[in-house]
């Protein structure tokens, strides 16, 4: 089973309960009163076409976009603010810092670089196979390596909740599969919400998948093939599910163009 090194977080994983998430621009309602639960310690995938509001929903959950109407809490009713690590589609590595300094960015910003933090960074970089480029600047790395560095930076935050916004959509399919496996291994046991427009990515990583679609967008959970996790790409049930999701999305009412 996946190893869980360097995790100091609460043994009881946090659920994320989202209720009343609404968003509209001008008179155009993107989504209204969305309510869902992301189970603690599991990967929850939110799948949907581009422009449906996935990233916005994730930002609302992260507290980056206050809406006033949305309630977000864990199972104890307390806020999840400060318990979140964020990983976006762009690697957001700072071009003037070495990979090592980049993965320590959070600690640096909080003025809390300690020898322990540095040891943890070294060890995590080693685990993802980036130890040899720790002193290089990001522009010397390939897209896949950069995204691995971003993953390490996310892990360095050591938060119970990880929010990922299309984390691997900018890399080639093979690298994407490797990064999915790596994330499954390293993030296992944490509460992860990831948004994606790739049905295969959702199927591989999601313990639960919600499809966000429509006008205004609604969330529907879908049935998942009962296979080992992360689900293999060559499993016939996974491929069949992927085809079904694509068909359903393709035949859903078109989003209205602005």
């Amino acid at each position: 089973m996946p190893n869980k090194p360097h995790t100091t977080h609460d043994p009881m994983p946090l659920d994320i309960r989202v209720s009343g998430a609404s968003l509209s621009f001008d008179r155009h309602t993107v989504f209204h009163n969305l309510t869902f639960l992301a189970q603690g310690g599991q990967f929850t995938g939110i799948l949907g076409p581009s422009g449906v509001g996935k990233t916005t929903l994730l930002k609302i959950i992260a507290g980056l976009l206050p809406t006033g109407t949305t309630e977000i809490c864990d199972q104890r009713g307390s806020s999840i603010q400060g318990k979140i690590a964020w990983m976006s589609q762009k690697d957001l590595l700072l071009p003037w810092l070495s990979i090592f300094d980049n993965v320590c960015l959070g600690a640096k910003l909080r003025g809390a670089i300690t020898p322990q933090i540095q040891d943890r960074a070294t060890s995590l970089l080693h685990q993802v196979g980036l130890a040899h480029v720790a002193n290089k600047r990001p522009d010397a790395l390939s897209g896949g390596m950069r995204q691995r560095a971003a993953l390490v930076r996310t892990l360095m935050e050591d938060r119970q909740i990880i929010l990922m916004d299309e984390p691997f959509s900018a890399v080639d399919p093979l690298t994407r599969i490797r990064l999915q496996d790596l994330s499954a291994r390293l993030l296992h046991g944490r509460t992860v919400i990831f948004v994606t427009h790739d049905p295969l990515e959702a199927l591989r990583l999601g313990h639960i998948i919600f499809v966000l679609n429509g006008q205004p967008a609604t969330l529907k959970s879908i049935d998942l093939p009962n296979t080992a996790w992360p689900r293999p790409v060559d499993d016939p049930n996974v491929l069949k599910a992927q085809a079904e999701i694509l068909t359903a999305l393709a035949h859903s009412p078109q989003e209205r163009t602005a």
Partner: protein
Amino acid sequence: MRLTILMVIFLTIWTTAWHLSGQRGYILPPPWDVAKALWSHAPLLAHHGMITLLEIILGMLFGCGFAICLGLSLALYRPAAAWVWPIFVATQALPVFAIAPLLVLWLGYGMASKVAMASLIIFFPVASGFYDGLRRTDPDLLDLSHTMNAGNWAIVRHIRLPAALPGLASGLKVGAAVAPIGAIVGEWVGSSAGLGFLMLHANARVQIPLMFAALFVLAIMAITLHSLIAYSLRRALPWIYES
């Protein structure tokens, strides 16, 4: 190599022009007359050149210092920017040359008025480059740093400032290129020393080769300054130039 070829082409065109214009040294002196003037007036050129160089360097220091402070405070305190920035843009509509006589009137024939001219002319490209750089921090980076519980000052210091350095760098390069203009115009309007002063005097006494020699010294100074700044920026900000 390329420099040598360019020099040869330049000197050929110059000599040809001298021939075609009737070999009148008081209109266009041939290169060798200018070289002679450079040699025989070397101490004079060095003296006035040093003064102009000092004006340019002080102008750069003051102009950049003020521009960096202003860019930073406006970017950090947005409400002020809404009021102050339009004023600075408006002042740019007024050519610096137009206020040169006023500066000489207020600050005298000495170095101060020339330094003020150079500072004024440098100020805007540097301030606007830096201010734009500070304003255009990737919003996704700011989101990321908020989820990292970063304080505002830490975000400025570790993210917004370094991210704005490319903007500042291009502002500095433009500044280095225009600084000599400020100093020379200041000297033309009223001065007792400097290359601009020397050129006016040489012109009045029909010492055209000396005028060209002064121009040559000025060009060398401006090119050196620009290359020096470009070189330091490349060394200081390798991530911009090596990618």
